[in-house]
């Protein structure tokens, strides 16, 4: 089971877990990235996510496939949300399953680290004082 998607609706983490459920696996690892209320000391009220959609979907799938190869046999499902998210909303959800916990956890970690490194998704933080700023543009 390998699936990757960019979505504009709420991510159902339990649904992702159900997708990788498999009686051949003894371990399921889950990651949910959520919108936090503070960043670099500034009060955050929400985040707007945008993407180069076609490329982001392709990169997400490449990453899931790479994880499945590297930690084979691994089930991988990943969804990243775009649009305006509120505090506590899930921005990225990942579920992996494997016969054993090591590859399940390492595969899940691989997927989130690669997403952060190379998927063309951007976020603009909205602050409590009404201002907005792109994240990760300093030092480019």
């Amino acid at each position: 089971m390998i699936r990757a998607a960019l979505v504009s609706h709420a991510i159902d983490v339990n649904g992702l877990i159900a997708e990788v459920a498999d009686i051949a696996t003894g371990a399921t690892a889950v990651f949910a990235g959520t919108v936090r209320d503070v960043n670099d000391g500034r009060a955050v009220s929400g985040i707007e996510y945008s993407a180069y959609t076609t490329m982001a979907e392709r990169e997400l799938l490449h990453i899931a496939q790479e994880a499945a190869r590297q930690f084979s046999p691994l089930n991988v499902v990943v969804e990243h949300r775009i649009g305006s998210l509120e505090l506590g909303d899930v921005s990225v959800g990942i579920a992996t399953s494997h016969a054993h916990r090591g590859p399940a956890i390492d595969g899940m970690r691989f997927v989130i680290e690669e997403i952060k490194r190379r998927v063309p998704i951007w976020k603009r933080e909205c602050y409590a004082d009404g201002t907005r700023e792109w994240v990760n543009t300093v030092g480019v």
Partner: protein
Amino acid sequence: MTVTVLLFAAFADAFGRSSIEVTVDQGATVGDIVDQLSALAPSDRLPPRPLAAVNAEYAEYDVRLNPGDEVALIPPVAGG
């Protein structure tokens, strides 16, 4: 030939638009496109060597472009 370059996030803000048409010679490379856009961008709004993509795949600066290719400049990513 004319190439359409997609701009996103902070780069779209820098140019005030989400895409821009660039005219280059046949056989031009990704690097040629970046050079042209760097000259157009307000100073300090574009890094010296931004990542680029051709047809939705990351591309090195020496990749030669063909008519109809979709080029994109990729700001530092911030997914997750």
